[in-house]
Structure formats: C-alpha cells, structure tokens
C-alpha cells in the first residue's frame, strides 16, 4: 500500500492532509476524507463525460473545434462557472473572454459576492483559518451549516482542535454559536447557543445584538437569551463570524448592518469575518478578476475595457447572450428555473469531467481531467490563502486550462 498525500477539492476548505491509495481504478485506502470528500474522490470513477456534439460521440479535437466555431460566430457570449476549477484555468478563461469580448461571471454574483467583495476590499476584518484554530474562542456560524457544507471546518479549525492559545479546545475554551432559520446539523452540536430566526430577520437580529452589547433591552428575540449572547460576545477574546448564504441573501443591500456589528464588536474585542464560500475556488476567480479588472464578478469585455453592472450577471446574461460556455459548474441544476431555461436554449458548451443536467443540455460536451485529482494547479481557500495541489492520478484527458487554451487557439 502506497499512500499519496494530496489536497481535496471537494469544498473551499481545500484540506491538504488527505492520504489515498488508488489502484486498479478504485480507492483502496483513504485517510482524513470527510463524507463530502469521499464522494468527491469516488466521482473519479463515476458518470464521466465523453466528447459529444448534439449528443453524438466525436473526437476531443472535433468537440474543441466546434466549441471554437460557436464562440467565434457569437456576437455576445457568456463564459460562466469558474468556481470549481484552478486559477490557471480561470486565467485562461479571462484571456479567452478578452479575445471574444465576452461576459464572465460566477456564482458569487447571486450568492455571497457582496460579502466577498467587502472582505477583499478590507472593509470587513478577516483572518485565516489557521488563526481561527490558534486563537479563536468564539465561532459564530450564521446562515451556515458547516456539518453539511464544509464537514471538517469544526474539527480542523473552529471548534474541536487544540490551537496555539486554545489548548483546552471546545471542552473549556471554545464556544460555537449558530444562527439559522432551522435546527441544522451544526446547531444540534451547540444547543446552548443556537438562535433560530424567521426568514429575512437577520437585520433585526443584528440590531438586537447591538442593543445587548450596549446594555439596552433587545427589541427582537428572547431578551434573556439575547443578553446571554451579548455577554458571550463581550467576553470573547478572539471571535470569528462565518456568514453563509442564509445571512448574505437575507441582508443583501443591508450588508452595512454586518459592518456596523463587526465594527462595534471590534471596539470591545477582536472579531473577524470569514465568508463560508462553498465551491473550492470561488475566491480564486473573484481575486483574479479583481486584479485584472477591478471587479470580482459580472464583467463584460464586449467593448474592450471591462464593464461591470447587473446586466453582466448570469441572471441577465443568460437571457441576453447568443452562446454560452460553462466550466466548473452545473448551472442547470443550481440556478433558478428561468435562468437555467434561458441557458438551456442557447448553443451551450459544457467543459466538465462529469455528466450533469448542463452537459445533458449542451450542444458540445468537452470532458476534462478532474481538477485537483487528475490535474494540478492552485486555488484560493475560503479564507484567502492560496493552496497549490498536485494530481493524485494520471489522466489522458486535458485539464480545464489546456482545453481553454486550445479553444482560444482554434478561434
């Protein structure tokens, strides 16, 4: 048995301590993989795509040439996805977008983009997950359920591990708060600090916390429990809020309420924010696009210079484009019906190692090596730390980056 140490690209924790032994087309042994990671690795051998045009099997070269032809003939193309591929592929995609005058977008435009943008701009203080492990005594999961979305978050970083200044860990030194509209799996782990909200009440809850911190009577929620929460936050030495999609979608344009809360907490003690980004390299795409254009998502190169506005988000661009390329995403499974339907009715190119609703609807399917398992590269973890990974097994398939370069060269 030869165990290979590798990185899991199953979620944005990018766990680097995975050990696997892959032989004869199966994973014979594995260490440190969570259920999500195990499923991600098992997907190496399931539902793999083949190159097709209109559902008919073709050569890889023919599929790439057809994709190039569709994009070359397009006057307004959309290049969408990017969250589950490497920075190298994202860079190749941005190059392709510039050549085509295309619109580029990822899931952050309708998910956590508003928060990610504030964190990346330094308008909300943040920290690394290693800081969380070493220093944090209070973690607040708000509209987030890491037990399902990032299964090793609590064990590697936020609740269970011993850290440099947290040798007694969750038994005595760490508290975990969950704010959610339902009793999630994570909420059951810390019942004393589970706060249940009605949908859309996150703003009121923030105002109530602020009141409790200031010694006023909270107007929203159970007064006694809100005061208990205020006391916990006041006593915290190093706190971290982990906002999930639930909080971000609830606050939306009222993200200044979170900024005010974090600013108030930092007058009392140290408090940071780390967005619970879902896909393994959303932050890579956001950072790369920001560096190149000044915007984290929803950018059009149609007039040469980058333009950023709501019309360039996938919700709008899916309707206005005349062709689309999807990579590192399955929008037909995840996007609202109207947007998914608009995409499905366009000439669609899907670059994906696996069969999905999007590949089933695509005019052209281009199979790629699984990023992180069959193709190496770099990605940015949810906390902004860059992680480099090597493939754990060989593949005859090209990487996402190689495919994008080939398409660009064929145009």
């Amino acid at each position: 048995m030869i165990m290979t140490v590798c990185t899991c690209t199953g979620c944005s924790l990018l766990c680097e301590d995975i050990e696997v032994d892959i032989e004869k087309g199966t994973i014979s042994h594995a260490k440190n993989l969570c259920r999500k990671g195990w499923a991600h690795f098992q997907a190496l051998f399931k539902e793999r795509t083949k190159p097709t045009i209109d559902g008919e099997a073709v050569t890889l070269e023919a599929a790439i040439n057809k994709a190039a032809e569709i994009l070359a003939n397009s006057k307004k193309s959309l290049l969408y996805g990017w969250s589950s591929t490497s920075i190298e592929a994202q860079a190749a995609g941005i190059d392709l977008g510039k050549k085509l005058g295309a619109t580029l977008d990822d899931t952050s435009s309708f998910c956590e983009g508003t928060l990610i943008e504030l964190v990346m701009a330094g308008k909300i203080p943040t920290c690394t997950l290693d800081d969380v492990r070493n220093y944090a005594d209070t973690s607040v999961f708000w509209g987030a359920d890491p037990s399902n979305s990032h299964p090793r978050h609590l064990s590697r970083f936020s609740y269970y591990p011993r850290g440099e200044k947290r040798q007694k860990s969750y038994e005595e030194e760490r508290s975990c708060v969950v704010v959610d509209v339902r009793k999630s799996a994570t909420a059951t782990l810390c019942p004393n600090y589970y706060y249940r909200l009605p949908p859309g009440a996150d703003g009121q809850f923030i105002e109530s916390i602020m009141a409790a911190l200031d010694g006023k009577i909270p107007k929203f929620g159970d007064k006694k429990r809100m005061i208990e929460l205020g006391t916990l936050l006041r006593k915290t030495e190093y706190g971290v809020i982990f906002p999930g999609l639930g909080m971000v979608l609830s606050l939306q344009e009222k993200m200044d309420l979170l900024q005010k809360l974090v600013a108030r907490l930092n007058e009392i003690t140290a408090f940071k924010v780390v967005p619970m980004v879902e896909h393994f390299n959303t932050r890579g795409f956001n950072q790369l696009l920001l560096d190149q254009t000044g915007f984290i998502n929803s950018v059009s190169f149609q007039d040469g210079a980058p333009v950023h506005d709501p019309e360039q988000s996938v919700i709008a661009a899916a309707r206005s484009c005349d062709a689309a390329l999807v990579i590192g995403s399955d929008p037909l499974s995840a996007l609202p019906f109207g947007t998914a339907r608009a995409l499905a009715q366009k000439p669609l190119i899907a670059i994906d190692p696996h069969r999905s609703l999007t590949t089933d609807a695509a005019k052209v399917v281009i199979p790629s090596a699984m990023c992180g398992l069959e193709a190496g590269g770099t990605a940015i973890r949810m906390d902004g730390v860059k992680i480099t990974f090597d493939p754990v097994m060989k593949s005859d398939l090209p990487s996402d980056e190689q495919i994008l370069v080939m398409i660009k060269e064929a145009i």
Partner: protein
Amino acid sequence: MDAEVTIVTFEDIFQYEAGKKGRYTDEYRDLSARIILDKQDMAKLGAKDGQKLRVQNDIGSVVVAAKASEDDPHPALAFMINSPWSSQLVRDDICDPSIPGFKGIAAKVSPTEESITQLSELLQRMRA
C-alpha cells in the same frame, strides 16, 4: 386541502454524495424531491411521510414527497434541499429584496396522486 408555505432551501451532505454517484439515480431523486413540513402543516394536508405533494407557485410546479420535520414547531415554514426540484420554484426577478430567491420561496402545497417529478422531465422543461 392546501397549505401556503415559505420554503427555505438548504444543503445536505447525503444528497451531495448521492449526486456524485449520479444525478439520475433513485437515491439522488429521493433525497432531492422532497419537502420538509411542520407537523401542523402535515396534519392540515392529511399527509404522512412519503405522501406525494404538488408544490407550486407562479414560477413553476413539482411533485415531491412529504417529510415531517423533527425540528421545533415552524408552521407555514418548509424546507427543501437545494436541487433541480427546488430551483424550479425559485424566482430570479427578485421582488422582495429582504427574502429573495433561494431562501424565501412562496408556494402552495397540496396532496396529489401524481408521480414524483423526474429529473428528465425537469430537463425537458428547460429545453422546451
């Protein structure tokens, strides 16, 4: 009997695992095509676990299986796992910015004898 509910979507690790095995598997469909309802709403609908329910709004309509919530009471609030089934009901012309898209889907739920909506049917709707 109908019930008006607000649906909040969420992520589930077991459904994620089933999806990795294959989107068209029975396991993925069974875990995705279901709605978790408060026991009071289940009683109002005369539904037990597994009862087929039509969930519809002005965006779309799907038939899914009922599951009684084990959470504290939450009448008129329902939960669905993020999936192509829940996405059928999500609006993308956000009207109420405080409770948008995926986290506040207004829908009507009613018992039905129709079959659970298949993934292939959802794909057909998108391509139609």
